[in-house]
């Protein structure tokens, strides 16, 4: 039997004006388990807390009920008071007689009556409270960053800067991501490579950072502070530690007709390749599907010319297991496929390109060495039409496009238009838009400059159809502001394709048990207050995997994610919330219902031996909750038909007791 003390707060006149606090204290005195009852003007004051501490000592209290303001206000305060008095802090319950009683009810009789009932419910609950101790788990002081674009790079650099080792897993042969493919960056127009490649070098040279390039995460187990991750290092048939990146093999490789991914297939590369000159690691990779040696066993030219002896045709995928305390997802984005957008003739004409392709066309390291030449005949285009929102903000075309705004297109289109006019003033540039969205520092000024100083024709309206005719592209569009149809003979059409999360994100989310929205963007733990954390503890979000973002935003989110990781790794031990679910193995059926509703993947199953009532021994599958991962929502407790699953601090028995006390 508990020995419960009841402490009724006046909160000055906040409670006392509509609740007869003395009557409440008196009424609760006779409740089961209550051995002491008092009232005081301000329970949360030092004097009020001292009163509680003294009563605990004097009356050997085992439980405390404070009738006061909302537990959201002072539950933590009174738990500390209890702890200071030598009680388990979870032996405290609060009856909310201010926000949910005195402040909302006008007359003293009904306010007092309700306060007494709320007090009784709290007493009934405390009678069933048990001391709870938060679990502790160690923290592996190493972070994993999945994705080596600007988001992953920045996060890794920031974590490493704080002194923690970081591993980057990148599925491509080099880090750098989408930013490495860009030409200039808005709104400052500094070249992407000039600001990105030094960071890539920093990563390579940082002794706290390991890069697993051409690698993928294949398995993730464990939980916050203790992830066990298996990384599959794909065979690149080149010994990474031996290759000097001299590029001789690339030069000599006879197989040179492979579409170059880095230039989005607008030129070709050889079967052995280094994606671009500043690649990190600067190591060659053999494309197994294109290499004659690997396919037919003949050739071997690269091996012959490699003075370092780095070529290894027998290389196999390698599995690496490592432990991590935190995982950062930075899997980024891709433009959506334009195949289904027939109205823009993307698949019919080489001169209809996406904006990312345009970036490569204007990039000095691109297929045209930075000269703006159209892909079909390598002539200088004189009329260029940019189409915005291709597949973005398209609620009606869900099967091919996206409902959301891709956010970056307005700005990069303004950039493309401006740069074109700057370099080639003889070019007519049209931009068709639904809205121009330029919220961001110096963004609107940038867009205005494109219109006002560079004379880009911005036309509100959508392009209806693009038809290739001879060497022209007939663009039919509507000008909504002037209410007329436009027919433009364009030389080049650039589509601002919507962006979507990388395809690797969905299987990764499954491995991480991290939640995603319907568009496969990772969801954050709280959209306003915890924007860089996943609801799954220990998993953090960086960059466009969480939603469309430009570079400044990505970098700041990357830094924020890093700071969260550092905060986690700085701890030696994690103290959990003790109000977590636990399963009674004797009653558990092992049916998996609880596991299926758990948003955190906190439940796993083990086979355990049981002595059955008839003295036989049976091996049964039973649920086991990982208290370090469980957040205590209680979804599992209702999914469980046998009642084996219960929630500490909000046990079924406790809630039933409250119901009973209220309905008495």
């Amino acid at each position, binding site marked *: 039997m508990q020995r419960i003390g009841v402490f009724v707060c006046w909160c000055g006149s906040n409670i006392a004006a509509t609740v007869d606090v003395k009557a409440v204290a008196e009424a609760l005195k006779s409740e089961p388990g209550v051995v002491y009852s008092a009232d005081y003007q301000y329970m949360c004051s030092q004097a009020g807390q001292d009163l509680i501490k003294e009563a605990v000592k004097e009356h050997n209290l085992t439980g405390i009920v404070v009738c006061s303001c*909302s*537990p*959201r*206000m002072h539950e933590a305060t009174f738990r500390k008071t209890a702890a200071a008095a030598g009680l388990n802090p979870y032996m405290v319950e609060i009856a*909310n007689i*201010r*926000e*949910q*009683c005195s*402040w*909302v*009810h*006008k007359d003293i009789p*009904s*306010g007092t*009556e*309700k306060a007494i*009932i*709320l007090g009784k*419910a709290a007493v009934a609950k405390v009678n069933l409270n048990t001391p709870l101790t938060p679990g502790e788990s160690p923290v592996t002081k190493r972070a994993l960053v999945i994705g080596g674009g600007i988001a992953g790079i920045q996060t890794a650099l920031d974590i490493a800067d704080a002194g923690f080792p970081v591993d980057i897993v990148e599925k491509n042969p080099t880090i750098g991501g989408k930013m490495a493919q860009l030409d200039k960056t808005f709104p400052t127009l500094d070249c992407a490579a000039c600001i990105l490649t030094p960071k890539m070098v920093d990563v390579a040279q940082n002794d706290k950072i390991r890069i697993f390039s051409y690698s993928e995460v294949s398995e993730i187990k464990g939980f916050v502070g203790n992830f066990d991750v298996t990384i599959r290092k794909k065979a690149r048939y080149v010994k990474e530690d031996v290759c000097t990146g001299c590029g001789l093999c690339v030069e000599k490789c006879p197989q040179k007709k492979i579409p170059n991914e880095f230039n989005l297939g607008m030129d070709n590369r050889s079967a052995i390749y280094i994606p671009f000159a500043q690649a990190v690691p600067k190591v060659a990779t053999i494309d197994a599907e294109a290499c004659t040696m690997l396919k037919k066993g003949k050739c071997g030219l690269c091996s012959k010319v490699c003075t370092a002896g780095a070529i290894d045709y027998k290389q196999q995928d390698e599995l690496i297991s490592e432990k991590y305390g935190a995982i950062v997802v930075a899997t980024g984005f891709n433009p959506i496929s334009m195949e289904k957008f027939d109205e823009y003739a993307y698949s019919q004409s080489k001169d209809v390109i996406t904006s990312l392709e345009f970036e490569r066309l204007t990039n000095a390291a691109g297929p045209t060495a930075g000269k703006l030449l159209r892909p079909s005949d390598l002539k200088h285009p004189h009329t260029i039409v940019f189409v915005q929102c291709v597949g973005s903000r398209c609620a009606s075309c869900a099967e091919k496009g996206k409902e959301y705004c891709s956010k970056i297109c307005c700005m990069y289109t303004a950039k493309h238009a401006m740069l074109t006019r700057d370099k080639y003033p003889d070019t007519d540039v049209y931009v068709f838009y639904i809205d121009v969205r330029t919220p961001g520092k110096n963004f609107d000024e940038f867009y205005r400059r494109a219109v006002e100083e560079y004379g880009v024709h911005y036309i509100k309206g959508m392009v209806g159809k693009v038809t290739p005719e001879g060497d022209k592209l007939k663009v039919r569009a509507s000008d909504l502001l002037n209410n007329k149809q436009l027919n433009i003979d364009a030389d080049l059409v650039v589509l601002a394709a919507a962006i979507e999360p990388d395809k690797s994100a969905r299987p990764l989310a499954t491995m991480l048990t991290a*939640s995603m929205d319907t568009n496969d963007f990772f*969801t954050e733990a*709280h959209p306003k207050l915890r924007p860089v954390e996943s*609801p799954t503890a220990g998993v953090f979000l960086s960059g466009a995997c969480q939603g469309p973002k430009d570079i400044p935003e990505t970098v700041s989110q990357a830094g924020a994610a890093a700071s969260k990781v550092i905060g986690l790794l700085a701890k030696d031990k994690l103290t959990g919330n003790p*109000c977590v679910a636990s399963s009674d193995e004797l009653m558990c059926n092992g049916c998996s219902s609880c596991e299926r*509703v758990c*948003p955190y993947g906190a439940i796993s199953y083990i086979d355990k031996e049981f002595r059955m009532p008839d003295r036989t021994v049976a091996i049964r599958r039973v649920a086991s909750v990982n208290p370090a991962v469980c*957040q*205590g*929502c*209680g*979804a599992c*407790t*209702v*999914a469980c038909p046998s009642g084996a699953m219960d*929630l500490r601090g*909000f046990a*079924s028995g406790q*809630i*039933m007791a*409250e*119901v*009973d006390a*209220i*309905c*008495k």
Partner: protein
Amino acid sequence: MQVKEYKPLIVAFCCNWCSYAGADLAGNNRLSYPADVKIIRVPCSCRVNPMFVLRAFQRGADGVIICGCHPGDCHYTSGNYYTRRRMALLFSMLDYLGIERDRTRLEWVSAAEGAKFAATMNDFVEKVTALGENKRLEDLRCKK
């Protein structure tokens, strides 16, 4: 002899993160609703077992209302989606057994919706009051 005015007994289950905070906000703003409503705090609306609802009716509650975060806003990301399915089925079953529909309700109240909380409670109490005492789902032994 004076006839005692009928006062219904309402049990409200409120999730800690949204609806309980919404109820607190109603208090902060002094938005009144009948004292017949007694709130039980649960971590998430998905903690509410249909057994709790039936238990309340058994012990003499006249109405049971469950409040949680709006869909998409659950602190635990998906708890309220399960609540919604469970309660849709449970309430439909109670209706099938001939229990009055207005005795049960599921409502989404965010931490910012103090006014909605008070309005919801006023409306619910009014509807339950109109129905009168719960006679169809009670345990007579529990009546005084």
